[in-house]
């Protein structure tokens, strides 16, 4: 193998040059039995049975080591290698194994379309591929699909409508999923616009402006630009809704600003400066049994007007940083399922 490792003794040289089989021995089995007895003894009777096991293991381990190092100690055991007669490949006879001299497999006869070896090769690859696919597909599906399918829709109970003074802005902080805890905490800017006539039924219905505080640049939390809470001399309220506590902070916003990259929005959520690509998102809502319920969000390109009379250019929910109108919208032709 390695010239510098070669022993000067010709007898030991053979150790490196020739393949040689270790002598067949039963000692390892005795050693293994000893170890098993030790382990069983640890459960049953550590002093007695484990000691017996230790004795067995030591005795057989010694015999094994003695056997295995016999060659090193200069008592090589002669082991006859197995031999078989050479069989020539040919008609009516089986081919000899590949490790013997001669042809391992007879050459395929002309006219044979698929030799046996080719068929086995293809079958192995094909079966391997099928088994691999059967294992990989569900795993890959499990890795990817739960992020897209069966998304929970959160209805957030925001407390009685009466808590929202007409024409006053509130910063509302709430959790969408109490089981998730604070990681599902969201904030919205909410203004009660009073009641307005429904254009279809002419019935008076409540109107709310509910703006998500998530910046439409990259999703940081925008803050209201203006005095709030104690500066206004108005206490904040905490409502217990079905989704956990909802905190309402009165605020007088001149607009909203994002602390991350400086986007600015006016009080209706229109972008006025910075890298954001559209107006702030808004929440759908319903009033159920006198309580304000937040539904899913939608995207807005711009808002004209204000309050109940605002004209909102509404689009299906897009991620932060995605244009919803103009030519850039064609970069996002497909959206993952969303509530």
């Amino acid at each position, binding site marked *: *193998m*390695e010239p510098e*490792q070669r*022993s*000067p*003794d*010709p007898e*030991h040289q053979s*150790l*490196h040059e020739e*393949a040689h089989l270790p002598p067949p021995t039963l000692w390892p089995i005795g050693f293994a039995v000893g170890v098993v007895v030790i382990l069983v003894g640890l459960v049953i009777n550590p002093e007695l049975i484990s000691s017996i096991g230790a004795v067995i293991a030591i005795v057989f381990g010694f015999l094994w080591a003695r056997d295995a*190092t016999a060659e*090193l100690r200069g008592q090589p055991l002669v082991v006859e290698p197995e031999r078989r007669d050479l069989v020539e490949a040919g008609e009516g006879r089986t081919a000899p194994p590949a490790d013997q001299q001669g042809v391992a497999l007879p050459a395929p006869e002309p006219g044979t379309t698929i030799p046996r070896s080719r068929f086995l090769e293809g079958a192995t690859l094909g079966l391997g591929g099928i088994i691999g696919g059967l294992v990989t597909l569900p795993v890959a599906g499990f890795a*990817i699909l*739960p*992020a*897209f399918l069966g*998304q929970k829709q959160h209805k957030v109970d925001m407390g009685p409508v009466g808590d929202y003074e007409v024409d006053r802005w509130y910063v509302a902080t709430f959790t*969408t*999923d109490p089981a*998730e*805890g*604070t*990681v*599902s905490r969201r904030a919205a800017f909410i203004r009660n616009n009073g009641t307005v006539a429904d254009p279809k039924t002419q019935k008076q219905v409540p109107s709310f402006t509910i703006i998500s505080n998530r910046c439409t640049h*990259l*999703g*940081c*939390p925008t803050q209201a630009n203006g005095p709030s809470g104690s500066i206004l001399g108005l206490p904040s309220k905490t409502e217990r809704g079905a989704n956990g506590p909802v905190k309402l902070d009165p605020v007088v916003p001149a607009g909203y600003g994002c602390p*991350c990259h400086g986007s600015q929005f006016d009080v209706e959520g229109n972008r006025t400066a910075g890298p954001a690509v559209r107006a702030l998102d808004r929440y759908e809502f319903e009033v159920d049994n006198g309580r304000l319920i937040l539904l899913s969000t939608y995207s807005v390109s711009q808002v004209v007007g204000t309050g109940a009379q605002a004209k909102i250019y509404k689009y299906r929910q*897009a*991620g*932060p*940083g*995605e244009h919803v109108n103009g030519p850039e919208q064609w*970069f*996002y*032709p*497909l*959206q*993952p399922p*969303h*509530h």
Partner: protein
Amino acid sequence: MAYTRKPTRAEIRRERMEELVNYPLDWFEERSGLIGGVRYFLFRNVPSDINWMQTLGSAALTAFLVQAITGVILAMYYQPTPQGAYPSIVNITDHLTMGWLVRGMHRWGASVFIILMFLHMGRVFLFGAYKYPRELNWIVGVLILVMGMMEGFTGYLLPWDQTAYWATVVGINLNGTAPFLGPFIAQFLRSGQEISAQTLTRFYSLHMLLIPGGIMALIGLHLYLVIRLGVTSPPWSKEAAGMEPAGEEPVPLRPGLTRPVPRGIAAAQAEPGGSD
């Protein structure tokens, strides 16, 4: 082997000791061939005018191993849940014995790893070592760099403090603005429409299992190609330019190339069956 004189007792004892050491090694080598393999891997011939800059790759590998080992230990104490993540980080840093050190090694080692990869990349670029026939290894190296940055991105969320949270919000939404597939990538990373507990466990799994596995596989490929193609001489090498006779082993030049044929190929041409 004939001795000119009778060996002394000390010589016999020495020989006996060598045999004792070699016997288990031979036993192992005969059954695995790994000792020869390790020797082939570690004791390769390199150009005589090799430069210290050429150790930057090994330095980056060492930094990666430090990250792997410290990461495994940190995983024993870290809890990837929204309620447990930050407290467990505080526990590691402030209470567990030497936790501050191992976490610090992991945190700063992350930057060291990236910096060393960039320095290594700069060395390869300035030495022209990315040229034929090593283009593929450059590409593999770039993939390792990208995966290293993915490690940085996913690892940054794990402390679960305000910086981590909002940096990840911004990072995921940046991915989301990629044309066409962006929204899907973002939703995959978020594991849903919103950041949740699953985002944290997903980043944890990506950070400690998937991406490191990919990096290890790519490092294996990278090293295989380094060994197969050999190490380049620095660009100022007079030997490689043919201006100075090479050492005892002259490297044959292939016609039309001003640079020597990489050692692996040269050896294969000179004597079929490899050199080592």
